[in-house]
C-alpha cells in the first residue's frame, strides 16, 4: 500500500462522500422541521436520475438543461409527496407518518418499475464529466473532482439561505417549535414545502452525479444510497445541515477505505453503514454536530 493508492482511494471516497452528503441534507432538514424520517428520500433521488435520463436520452435536451429541469421537477415531486401523503398526518403519531413514508417509498419504486421496467438503463454521461486527469500516477476522474465542488457550492448556498434569509429563519424557528411559529403568523405549510423542495432538489443533484458515477440506473437504485445517507445524517447529528455533509464524507471515505484495505470484506460493503449507524446510536446517539435529539438547529 503506497501513497498513490491511498490518495487514489481518498479521491474516490471524497466524491462518494459528497454524494451521500447531498442526499443526507434532505433527510436532516425534513427531520429537523417535521420530525419525520422521510423514508422515500432515496427514491426521490432515483426519480431525479430518471428525469435526467428522460431529458437527455429521450427528449434530447442539452445535458445542463436536462439536469436543471430534472432537479426542478424532482423538487416539485418532493412538494407533492409532502402535500398528498405527509401533510394530512402532521398531527398524527410519528409512527403513522413513518408508515406512510414507507408506503410512498414503495409506491415510487413500483411506479417506476411499471413505467420503465426493471432492466437497468444506461445513463448518458456528458463528455464534460467523462475524462480523467493523471497527476503523478493518481487518477482524478473529472466527475470525482466536479462532484465535491458542486456539493460544496450548493451546501454554501443552502447555509446562506438558512442563516441569511427570512425563509431560512422560519425553517430554523420551525425546528424549535412549530406551534409558536404558526401563531407568529408564518405560513408553516409553505415553509415545510420549501424544505421538501430544497431536500428533493439536492437529492436529484446527488442522484444525477451518482448516475454519472455508476451509469446504470434501475428503479431500486435509490434504496442503498438513501439508507447510507440516512446513516450519514444520524452520524452528523440529525437536524444539522453541516453535520449531514460531514457525516456523508465520513461514511463515503470509510466505505471506500475499508474496501481498499480489506478487499476480502468487499462483499460486506453495504452492511458497513449500518454497523456504523448502530455504533453511533449506541455510543453517541446525538451524532457529531447534534446536541439533543429533541432539538433541531440546522
Amino acid at each position: 500500500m503506497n501513497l498513490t493508492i491511498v490518495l487514489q482511494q481518498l479521491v474516490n471516497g471524497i466524491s462518494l462522500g459528497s454524494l451521500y452528503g447531498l442526499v443526507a441534507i434532505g433527510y436532516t432538514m425534513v427531520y429537523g422541521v417535521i420530525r419525520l424520517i422521510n423514508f422515500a428520500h432515496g427514491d426521490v433521488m432515483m426519480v431525479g436520475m430518471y428525469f435526467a435520463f428522460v431529458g437527455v436520452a429521450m427528449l434530447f435536451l442539452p445535458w445542463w438543461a436536462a439536469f436543471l429541469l430534472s432537479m426542478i421537477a424532482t423538487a416539485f415531486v418532493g412538494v407533492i409527496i409532502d402535500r398528498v401523503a405527509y401533510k394530512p398526518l402532521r398531527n398524527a403519531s410519528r409512527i403513522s407518518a413513518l408508515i406512510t413514508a414507507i408506503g410512498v417509498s414503495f409506491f415510487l419504486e413500483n411506479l417506476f418499475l411499471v413505467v420503465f421496467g426493471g432492466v437497468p438503463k444506461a445513463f448518458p454521461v456528458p463528455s464534460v464529466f467523462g475524462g480523467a486527469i493523471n497527476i503523478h500516477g493518481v487518477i482524478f476522474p473529472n466527475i470525482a473532482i466536479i462532484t465535491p465542488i458542486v456539493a460544496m457550492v450548493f451546501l454554501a448556498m443552502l447555509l446562506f439561505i438558512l442563516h441569511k434569509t427570512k425563509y431560512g429563519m422560519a425553517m430554523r424557528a420551525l425546528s424549535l417549535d412549530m406551534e409558536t411559529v404558526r401563531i407568529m403568523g408564518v405560513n408553516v405549510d409553505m415553509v415545510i414545502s420549501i424544505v421538501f423542495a430544497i431536500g428533493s432538489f439536492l437529492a436529484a443533484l446527488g442522484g444525477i452525479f451518482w448516475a454519472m458515477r455508476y451509469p446504470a440506473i434501475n428503479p431500486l437504485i435509490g434504496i442503498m444510497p438513501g439508507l447510507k445517507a440516512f446513516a450519514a445524517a444520524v452520524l452528523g447529528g440529525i437536524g444539522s445541515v453541516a453535520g449531514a455533509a460531514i457525516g456523508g464524507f465520513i461514511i463515503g471515505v470509510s466505505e471506500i477505505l475499508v474496501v481498499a484495505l480489506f478487499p476480502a470484506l468487499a462483499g460486506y460493503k453495504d452492511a458497513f453503514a449500518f454497523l456504523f449507524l448502530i455504533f453511533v446510536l449506541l455510543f453517541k446517539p446525538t451524532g457529531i454536530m447534534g446536541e439533543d435529539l429533541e432539538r433541531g438547529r440546522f
Partner: protein
Amino acid sequence: MNRNTILTVLSIVLLFLFVWYGEHHFTAYTIRIWENTAIFLMLAASYNLINGVTGQFSLEPNGFVAIGAYVAAILTLTPAQKEAMFIIEPMVPWLAHLHMSFLPALLVGGLVTAFVGFLLGFPVFRVRGDYLAIVTLGFGLTIRVISNNTITITNGALGLKGIASYTNIWWCFGWAVLSMIIIMRIVNSAFGRAMKAIRDDEDAAIAMGINTFWIKMAAFVIAAFFEGVGGGLLAHLITTISPTMFTFFLTFELLIIIVVGGLGSMTGTVIATVLVIWGSELLRVVEQPMNIFGLHIPGIPGMRMVIFSVLLIVIMIFAREGIMGQREFSWDAFFNFLKKVRARR
C-alpha cells in the same frame, strides 16, 4: 370448562375440518394459497406482537424469516445434497454432516432466530421510535448481505435448492393455530398488559415499575422464534431459497397486513391476512392481458405493488385504525351483539 373455552375449541376443530375438507377437495393452487395464508398469519401475528401490542415499530421480519429458513433448510438437506450443491466452495464440515428431520429442524431454526433476536435486542432497544425502525431495517439488509457472502454456509447467491417439500397444509395451519394461541395467551396475561402499557406511554410504564427493556426483549424474542419457524415452513414449501427472497418486500407485505388489520389487534391480523393474501391473488388480473369487448389491454407487470402501496398510504391517511383498531374478538362481545340484534327485532 366455561362456555367461551368450549366455543374456542369448537371453532379450532371446525377450522381443522375445513383444512381436512380442503386437502381433499381444493385444487393444488387453492391449497397453496391457504398454506401461504397460514404461514403469513403466523408471521404477521408475531410481527404485530412487537409493532402493535408493544408499540415498538421495527422492520426486521425479513431478517428473522431468512435466518429461520436457512437454518431449517440446512438442517433437513442430506449430506449428499449439500455436497452436490456447494459448487463454489464446499460447506463447512460441521454443518455438512448435520442432518435432522423436519420438526426438530423447524424448532432449531426458531430457536436460533430467537437467539439472534435476543442478541439484536441489546443494541436496538437502546433507541426508540423511528430510530428503532431504521436500525432494524438495517439488520434485515445486513442479514441479506451476510447470506450472500458466507458462501461456505449459505451457498451465497446461488441459494439452496432441492429442499424436501415437507410443508403441507396441516403443518401450516397447525403452527398458525399454535402460534395464535400462544400469542393470544401472552397478550391477555400480565405480561401482555405490560406490553400495552409500554405502547401507550413508555415513560409512565417505567414509572409504574415495569422493566420496559426486558418486556420489549421478551416480545422481540417470542416474535423472532415464530418468524424463524415461519421461515422454515416457507423454505420447505417453496423448496428453494436464495438471499433475494428475503428482501424488504416481505416486511412490507407483513406491514400492510398488520396496518390493514389494525396495529395491536390479533383479530384484525387474522382478517387482514386472509384479505391481503387472497386479494393479492385476485389482483393478478391486472397483471394479465385482458380482452374487454374486443379491446385488448396488455397486462402491466408490477401493477399489484403500486396498488398495494397506494392502499397503505390511503389507509394511513383516512383509516389509521385499520379494520379492528386495537379491539379483539371475544365471545362475550359476540353474544352481547347477538342479544342486541335480537332485542332490536
